[in-house]
């Protein structure tokens, strides 16, 4: 079976679900003839027509609001925002409406919508094209946040998101859109939206990460292994709800926690995970937990971007400190 990219997997999931559920519609800027600026929606308009694949005017608040409206009427809209940095005009619709529809109507109406957006840095893009603000959305009651990091998980998680009866923010790590490849079985099987995935077993520390950082984390784990340190690498995948049970189970074995994320440090999801560990499983820790995160800066324009991206040795250094500094 041929290997496909993460982007192909997104496209496969959309094709699969549109073929199997008439209620699935795709909308956004440039999603039709152009197949989306990253080509995630390629071929959908040709196959399902312009009633189900809708090029919207350039207006994110409109896209947000229209998606909410459609979702209340039994459709399953999948809206595309071109970049996470352009979701903000739609924020009001996401926070005040999509997230609250079920609660506000006491379950009479729901909002089974997926809001997709590429996120993260590392592709030398202009300003506002490199944001990682998953924590902002994770903070909102009523929405879930999902971030795939491999083709198979992108496929399975997107199917699950479309089938979910609640609104899902589905953030795609664009840095690895085309660089991470694997085989995907196109059988319509969804993955759970409440479970993280252990990508590598290890006894010395638990490394929790998500999105594009999974790549550097796995590389770091390999390097660490050569130094005699075995890291258990967990892809969080569902940022909200967080699967703390799996993380705690891993900590029972390793006793050391390292969280790696590209987003800014302050109030990032790493802080949430560490706070929960200190509430629920402090006694398991053999060393203070550590974070490798982005800085609390605006992502610089591309010339200096690499210095602000998490590199493999940032992770290796932190892991070594965690293990060797606290023997």
């Amino acid at each position: 079976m041929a290997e496909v990219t993460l982007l192909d997997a997104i496209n496969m999931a959309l094709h699969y679900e549109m073929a199997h559920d008439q209620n699935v519609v795709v909308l956004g800027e440039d999603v039709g003839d152009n197949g989306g600026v990253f080509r995630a929606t390629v071929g959908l308009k040709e196959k399902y027509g312009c009633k189900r694949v809708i090029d919207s005017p350039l207006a994110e608040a409109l896209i947000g609001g229209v998606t909410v409206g459609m979702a209340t009427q039994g459709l399953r809209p999948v809206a595309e925002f071109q970049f996470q940095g352009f979701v903000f005009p739609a924020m009001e619709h996401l926070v005040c409406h999509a997230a609250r529809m079920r609660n506000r109507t006491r379950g009479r109406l729901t909002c089974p919508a997926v809001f997709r957006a590429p996120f993260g840095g590392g592709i030398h893009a202009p300003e506002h094209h490199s944001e990682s603000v998953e924590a902002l959305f994770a903070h909102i009651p009523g929405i879930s946040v999902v971030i795939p990091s491999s083709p198979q998980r992108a496929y399975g998680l997107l199917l699950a998101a479309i089938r979910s009866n609640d609104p899902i923010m589905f953030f795609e790590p664009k840095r690895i859109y085309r660089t991470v490849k694997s085989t995907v079985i196109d059988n319509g099987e969804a993955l759970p939206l409440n479970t993280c995935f252990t990508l590598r077993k290890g006894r010395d520390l638990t490394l929790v990460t998500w999105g594009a950082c999974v790549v550097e984390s796995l590389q770091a784990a390999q390097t660490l292994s050569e130094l005699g340190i075995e890291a258990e690498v967990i892809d969080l995948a569902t940022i909200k709800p967080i699967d703390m049970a799996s993380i705690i189970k891993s900590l029972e074995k390793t006793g050391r926690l390292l969280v790696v994320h590209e987003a800014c440090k302050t109030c990032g999801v790493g802080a949430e995970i560490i706070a929960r560990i200190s509430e629920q499983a402090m006694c398991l820790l053999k060393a203070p937990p550590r974070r490798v995160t982005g800085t609390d800066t605006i992502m610089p324009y591309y010339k200096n971007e690499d210095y602000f991206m998490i590199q493999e040795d940032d992770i290796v250094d932190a892991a070594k400190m965690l293990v060797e500094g606290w023997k």
Partner: protein
Amino acid sequence: MNVLAMPMHRFIDHRGKLVKPLPEWADLMTLKGFYCDMVLTRTYDNKAVALQRTGKLGTYPSHLGSEAIGIAIGRALKKSDVFIPYYRDLPALWARGIGMEKNLQYWGGDERGSDFSPDEERCRDLPFCVPIATQCTHAVGVAAALKIQGNHNVALVTCGDGATSKGDFLESLNCAGAWNIPLVFVINNNQWAISVPRAIQCGAELLSDKAKGAGIEGITVDGNDVVAMFDIVTMSLDHARKGKGATLIEAVSYRLSDHTTADDASRYRSEDELQQAWEFEPIKRLKTFLIEQGAWSEQDDISWQAHCKEVIETVVDHYLSMTPQAPESAFDFLYEQLSEDLLSQRDLIINKAMRMQGGNHG
């Protein structure tokens, strides 16, 4: 009907013929100056695309085809006016006196490209705005401030046709009418917003019709005719300067390039349409007109083009030889004062940059 040929405010048509007598200000010297500016900015544009292709510039949005709009704006604004540009506005900024090196820096991934001071007088101009249409609301704020300050300066904001679909644009227009502020909106209607054609943005025949609901003047101009553009922009600025309020100018033009260097317009746009649009572009018509008036020759053109190439080469050399922006500069303008935490994050980046530049990791 081809929208580029529609009847609208125009002096020189695409064949270089006068369709009505030139306005008084439009002597041949002035028009030659416009022409030379447009050729220079096009030379720059070609070079910028080439730099991107060779990895010396990041993603770049070409302004090919909108030179007349930009040069007219840049020349019509007074120094003391405030310009609120969008990302395709190099010609206007340049005609206003902002060095092209700044634009190369900006698209080359260096924040210093938005620093128009201290060597420029026009440091009240806003930097490029990437989130579509948000600059329109800033422009309302700028214009309101100018009105409050009572100095008869005017704000001018630009955006694309796609941007007119956003609430920000419509809310700004509405407010500009209600507040009677000195603001000129210029829509660069280049017919496409990435892959979405003008017709899919809204059902109105003319984007200038959107002015009606806001109670301000709306006018559609041939954005490929620099004379018509300069004429209308100047009149609108005067109108605003006299306290008579805002104007919406729809400049009808065509994006002859891809949306940016990351785009491939052949996916959604026909070659025929593009070829036809080239017949209407702004530079050729003015050249034909000037030659017919005996004010320009093919020989002049060859010399000017060669001169432009030299100028641009110098600009590029300058850009390429600039010292890199310090990595820690991402912290240096974030707050007036950095907290201890940010200072230690800053140190972290300095060390990391040294490590990455040195390549050693122990």
